[in-house]
């Protein structure tokens, strides 16, 4: 069952070939069998999942079911889920049972998608490897010595290993796309504002976006349809008519102009990765697309700018974790200061503390102009590079990450090196543009993704390109042998 496409799964459910309970149980069994070694789930919710599957079966029986009804989903543990532990990968929220649902959780509940559990992640979404989780690292299903990427590493791993048919993730600097690339799955970060942030534990508010993580572009389109849309509870949620992200899937790529930035293939890019990406782009040309060279002159400013702005916002967003109203509190605080300092030092992991401190520093008196304000200006420049480039192309393609998945422990001591590996994904978040990662091949036996960036609101086009690519390639169908 776990090797079906979502469309096939849906057809069979609707046809009564199996029930949602059976399908859900199938995944729960696989989780019980494989997750111990992968550590992709923080919390598995078998009773809830079966209960929801039973509800879904009723809908399937009375004809009120939608396409995704009855198909289970795994939520990144950053989405508040009513009555379910929502830890954000942190000791700070190890005891937090959310009293409300995030908007996207509500949306998917409405459709009737049973919740299998909450997936592992870098603590408070700060990381590119999922190693900083309080619950330990998740292993890459393709190589247990390698990271699955981050921060949505757990979500990527569950899709790659068939421990959930659909998963949700969030992307602030590449946290959907990079794990998708490292694990050989598909993931899309929508235009900023397309999906509501209500109920998503905030890391960097002007960057965070939720999106689907799935086997294929088509699956992502269906899931994005269910997740996206205006939510009045989020001031940054876009008030526009909700598009159908599956509407353009079948369009031909004839005449599509693909911009490839010269700057992308410089030093630092693994040669095998470069090869995979170039081959993938050549595949697009075979489908009728045309490649043009574009330039992103301010590309190198993206990483420093991001690592000022995101930690700055985070330093403020995480101030609410103070041991007073919820979450971790230190033992026997002597006084208020002791309560704050010890609860926060003991509750937060090292990387989170570092980013909070860097962020506060960047906002502090004397540094605001040189760091924060400057970074906001660079942000505009990086974004404008893309807008300019889109004058001569429809989408931009390149690598998602400079290397395939690195080994667990390899980069955990060298923050800056880890940060610099986000150089392809970060610029997209700075601009709030949509971007897709689709599996495009292997390098050193590990998956490599192709990055496709589009102008604002071009998700349907990106998914179309991904889908057409997946009609003529089969990278997205590959699974590690032991999980087949």
């Amino acid at each position, binding site marked *: 069952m776990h090797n079906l496409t979502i469309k096939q799964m849906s057809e069979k459910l609707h046809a009564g070939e199996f029930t949602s309970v059976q399908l859900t149980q199938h995944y729960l069994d696989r989780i019980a069998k494989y997750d111990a070694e992968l550590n992709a789930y923080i919390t598995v919710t078998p009773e809830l999942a079966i209960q929801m599957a039973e509800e879904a079966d009723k809908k399937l029986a009375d004809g009120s079911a939608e396409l995704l009804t009855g198909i289970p989903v795994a939520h990144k543990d950053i989405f508040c889920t009513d009555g379910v532990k929502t830890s954000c990968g942190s000791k700070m929220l190890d005891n937090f049972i959310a009293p409300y649902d995030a908007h996207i959780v509500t949306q998917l509940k409405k459709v009737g998608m049973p919740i299998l559990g909450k997936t592992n992640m870098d603590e408070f979404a700060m990381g590119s490897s999922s190693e900083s989780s309080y619950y330990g690292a998740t292993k890459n299903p393709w190589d247990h010595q390698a990271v699955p990427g981050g921060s949505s590493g757990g979500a990527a791993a569950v899709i790659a290993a068939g421990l959930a048919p659909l998963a949700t993730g969030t992307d602030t600097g590449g946290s959907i796309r990079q794990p998708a690339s490292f694990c050989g799955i598909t993931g899309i970060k929508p235009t900023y504002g397309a999906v509501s*942030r209500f*109920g998503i534990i905030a890391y960097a508010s002007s960057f965070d976006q939720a999106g689907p993580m799935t086997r294929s572009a088509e699956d992502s389109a269906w899931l994005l349809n269910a997740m996206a849309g205006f939510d009045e*509870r989020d001031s940054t949620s876009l008030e526009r008519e909700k598009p159908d992200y599956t509407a353009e899937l079948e369009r031909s790529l004839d005449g599509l102009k693909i911009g490839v930035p010269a700057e992308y293939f410089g030093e630092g890019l693994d040669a095998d990765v470069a090869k995979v990406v170039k081959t993938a782009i050549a595949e697009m040309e075979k489908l009728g697309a045309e490649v043009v060279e574009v330039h992103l002159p301010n590309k190198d400013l993206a990483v420093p700018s991001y690592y000022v702005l995101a930690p700055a916002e985070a330093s*403020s967003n995480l101030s609410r974790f103070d041991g*007073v109203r919820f979450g971790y509190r230190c033992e026997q605080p002597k006084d208020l200061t002791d309560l704050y300092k010890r609860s926060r030092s003991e509750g937060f992991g090292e990387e989170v503390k570092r980013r909070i401190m860097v962020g506060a520093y960047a*906002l502090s*008196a004397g540094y605001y102009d040189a760091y924060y304000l400057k970074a906001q200006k660079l942000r505009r420049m990086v974004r404008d590079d893309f807008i300019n480039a889109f004058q001569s192309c429809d989408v931009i393609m390149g690598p998602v990450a400079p290397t395939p998945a690195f080994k667990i422990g390899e980069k955990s001591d060298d923050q800056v090196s880890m940060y610099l590996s986000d150089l392809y994904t970060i610029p997209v978040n700075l601009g709030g543009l949509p971007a897709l990662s689709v599996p495009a091949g292997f390098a050193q036996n590990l998956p490599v993704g192709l990055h496709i960036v589009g102008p604002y609101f071009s998700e349907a086009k990106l998914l179309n390109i991904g889908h057409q690519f997946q009609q003529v390639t089969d990278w997205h169908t590959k699974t590690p042998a032991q999980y087949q």
Partner: protein
Amino acid sequence: MSWEVVIGLEIHAQLTTKSKIFSGASTAYGAAPNSQACPIDIGMPGMLPVLNQAVIGKSILLGLALDAEIGKRSVFDRKNYFYPDLPKGYQTTQFEFPIVGQGKLEIELEDGTKKVIGVTRAHLEEDAGKSVHGLEQGQTGVDLNRAGTPLLEIVSDPDMSSAKEAVAYAKKMHELVQYLGICDGNMQEGSFRVDSNVSVRRPGEPLGTRAELKNINSFRFIEKAIEIEIERQIELIESGGTVVQETRLYDAENDTTRSMRTKEDANDYRYFPCPDLLPVIITDEDIEAVRTTMPELPDAKRTRFVAEFGLSDYDATVLTGSRAMAEFFESVVGLTKEKDVKLCANWMTSGFSAALNRDGLSVTESPVSAEMLAGMIERILDNSISGKIAKQVFEAMWQGEGTADQIIESRDLKQITDTGVIEALVDEVLANNLEQVEAYKAGQTKMLGYFVGQIMKASGGQANPGQVNKMLVAKLK
């Protein structure tokens, strides 16, 4: 050795919205602890703010009343610090781009001199919760009901140079926000909070270090606190010390100010634009729409009352003491068709106001409505009752016995105006008081009062005094 005093006031006015500035929780005062604190107010993970529409119009109203620039593009910023009553660890406020810019307010001092006080700006922000002591040993309790209530922080230029000027400004602003209907001005409940920044300097020298006086909720104490603080600073400097920038509280019992332990150790608030909120845009059309709803302001009303109704400055001031009072008065005047405005004014400034004060009621809580009072005044004007009887009628109306007509009827208070009846009364009294009649005729004209008194007594107070007088004089010739 002369000293210059420099005072600036920061006033926090709670806006009269039903729900909070960024959430749909209620702002009603006096609710059970934490019963009006929703997840957004508590700063729970994943919660987001959405701006309450009503605060915009109220801010624009104040801006227009202060002749101020309206910030057409204002931005919410985060002011970061840690304190138990600040759930998110930051306060959402407006730092660089406030909704109201530079304006002014004219004040009048007791001696009649007028002074224009500059208002630097007014910005929107959210209120914090409340700390409660004594619930548990060694613990402080936190009630977040108030967290998220919308505030307009009104900052004056440091234009005031005495405690009296400062209080005059504060009182004027207090009156204004109530007139505009944007704040209920209840200082006991904390809806209107005045912080005074006080410093002294020698003429010609740069500004001195200021101390901030907080948590004083009556104008009388604000004035005393400022005066005592000025004295303290002068004494301190003259004896060789230096003024420290700090927050001080007023100790009413001892009439001193004392230093408060500061809540924020490091004052680096790291302001930056709140990424969960977008810039607030106000158009010229929005401003004009609000302008059309602007009520007549107190000064203009006072001037009009003097000009249109011929009232004295004093009466005009009392009658415009609140918007509700002024509207009540104009209602009464209208209902009595302006036949005797002075009479309406007298009743409002004396009997009506006295009753309100006695029972601790505001105009809107008055058991006597404008219709009822007008009805009673009509009966005075048509001679059904005398002014004196009217006092009985008023008191009866106040106690809920009904309208003037109902009371006059049920208590049989109608004034006697029948000439025949009055003549009979006069004749009787004069016949029974022959000695006093002789005295009057011998020149003791004051005896008239005695006769009037007797007649009023005999008639149960209901004889029309004017007619009685006239008839007595005629009969005694």
